[in-house]
């Protein structure tokens, strides 16, 4: 049972780590960013590239990659999303056009990486981080990377909740999420806020990409796709706009999946897990932590 709990926490960390940045952009920017899986993949890919060109440990590679992915996200925002936000006639039009644009951006990134890698799977070199197993007798096996992910996930979740709820920047984010026009009148530079948010979201995607690429021991142009589906489910279970909800949703889904593999029909893991999600949504259509329907941040 201890191993089941450890596996659940490990898988939950994978899901939450991936979902945090996506939740942030969805909450603040009203951006259902389908390019997020590609941003995550770019984090993993850049770690592979950097690791193969420079002999640096994770402590240096990680921030470098986070900055690179954050920068590419800001460029994408300036070139595409900002224009769509400002030229769209209605908020719904804006959300739809950004959603479609994010599909296009994802396709571009995936195609470029696929071309560069010839479609083959790659991996982050061991010189960046050496995965080691920590054994607790015969009952518990965990790698050092799994432990790092668990700790980073908890710290990041707490940090994001604190920033969004209790800082001036967080209050501005929540304000812009509800009414950007009024916030502008009150002196909030919404474009700068959007860019900052998308940079943070990109950095989180980069961080998740690096850590998960090392944990999973592979880098692939399509590696973000399966997680994207899970992340949307997690965010909806938790309640759109709730960082804490996304975290709880991620761990709940992970526990359900691991329990099914450990004690049930493993082949039906995803099907059963999504039936559980469906049941949760039928009971609480706005998610576990949403106080009001579609209240964001």
């Amino acid at each position, binding site marked *: 049972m201890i*191993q*089941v709990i450890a*596996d*659940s926490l*490990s*898988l939950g960390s*994978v899901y939450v780590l991936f979902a945090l940045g996506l939740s942030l952009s969805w909450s603040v920017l009203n951006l259902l960013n389908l390019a997020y899986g590609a941003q995550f993949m770019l984090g993993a890919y850049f770690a592979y590239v950097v690791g193969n060109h420079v002999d640096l440990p994770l402590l240096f590679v990680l921030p470098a990659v986070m900055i690179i992915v954050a920068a590419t996200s800001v460029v994408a925002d300036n070139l595409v999303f900002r224009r769509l936000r400002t030229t769209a006639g209605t908020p719904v039009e804006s959300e739809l056009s950004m959603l479609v644009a994010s599909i296009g951006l994802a396709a571009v990134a995936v*195609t470029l990486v*696929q071309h560069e890698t*010839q*479609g*083959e*799977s*790659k*991996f982050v070199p*061991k010189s960046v981080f050496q*995965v080691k*197993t920590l*054994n607790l007798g015969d009952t518990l*096996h965990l*790698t050092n990377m*799994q432990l790092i992910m668990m700790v980073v996930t908890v710290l990041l979740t707490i940090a994001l909740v604190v920033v969004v709820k209790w800082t001036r920047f967080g209050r501005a984010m929540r304000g812009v999420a509800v009414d950007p026009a009024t916030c502008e009148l009150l002196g909030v530079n919404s474009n700068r806020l959007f860019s900052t948010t998308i940079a943070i979201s990109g950095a989180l995607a980069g961080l998740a990409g690096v850590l*998960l690429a090392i*944990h*999973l*021991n*592979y880098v*692939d142009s*399509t*590696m973000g*796709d*399966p*997680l994207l589906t899970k992340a949307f489910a997690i965010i909806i279970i938790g309640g759109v706009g709730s960082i804490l909800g996304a975290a709880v949703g991620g761990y709940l889904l992970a526990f359900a*999946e*691991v329990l099914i*593999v*450990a004690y049930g029909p*493993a*082949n039906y*893991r*995803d099907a059963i897990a999504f039936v559980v999600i469906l049941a949760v949504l039928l009971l609480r259509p706005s998610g576990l932590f949403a106080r009001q329907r579609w209240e964001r941040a």
Partner: protein
Amino acid sequence: MKHDTKDLSVGRPRFARSVGIVGAAAALALVATACSPSDSGGSSSDSGLSGTVDVTSIQDLTGAVGPVGISTQNGMKLAEKQVNDSGMLGDAKLKISYQDTQTKGDQAASLMSSAVSTKATAIFGPVSSQEAVVVAPIGQSAKVPTIFTQAGSDGVVIGDYTFRVTAPQQYYQPKMAAYLKSQGIKTASFIYDSTVPTTKDITEKTLPPLLEQNGITVKGKYGFQNGTTDYSAYVSKVVGEKPDAVGVEGTNPEASPIISSLRNAGYKGLIFGGTSFGAASLKAAGEQAKGVVWATDFDPKSDFPKTKQFVADYTAMFGSPPVNYAAEGYDAVYLLAQGLKNANSTDRAKVQAGMAEAAKKGYDGALGPLKFEGNDLRQDGYLQTYDGTAVQPVENQS
């Protein structure tokens, strides 16, 4: 020696298959109305071989199994060049048009339904089983000779117009079962991709009885879905069963992550698998993959003259040694070339008969001496292992 192998019969199964089946149904309806049995379609000619013989290849060149398709295509290009340079078809020249399915079933169905309406004499189908089962009925219904490699599941060779130049993996699994017995293995558990027809069939149908015949008990079989990102739960379950050996039956990108997870969880026993194992797919696991064993259909170190010649020619043309997919693509083109030669015509029905005749006789190919059962290749295969950096043949394989 470098030998890259990737299974597949693969793909992104979730949406592609269902969409593809709908696409295939629509395409079949179109084909049924467009082609009567007497009209083999296009502008196939019965006036002997001359000029250009148009052939279409519908292949996974990008997407999940892109590398498999590209490797297959390289083998085909080498064969196409050699057939034309050698004058095997007299004055006629093979001209293969290469199209990309993007590893999508609906795209494969769409390309196939277009291809059967062209003057293509024959069509090469995709390596992915999910797509092949969609494409095959279209080719069979339109009576266009359709040749597959890899796609190892049921539903691919479905009639006289469909051919496969890769022996389904179940034909080389007896060797694996015998090898496990020779290593003193008494128990085995499986982690497998339950959404890929080939790996599902091997794990659920083919291997269990073979293992049982060799005195090996299967402790558990745990299927995961294509796209799974963390195998910890499956690995913990399997490691807890303490089997002597673990079978890992999945696609190329799944091999190293599962093997690394098993070793990280403290598993020290034998790991075995299918053609998804190879130098490229095991590189990430590195030393952790040392000693894994798998069955495949191509031995690039073989002394068989045709294989040696193929390896030399391929290396000269592409600058790197061939993998099994390239050998299969190469042999597939030669099956068509012999069919054309036997038919002395581009008429689809005659070419089909010519190919059936070539398959019945068998021929020497890059994979070795090729024998068919009907239109489907049969081979015993080879066992290979990984030494931490490169692929090596398993010694003393029966």
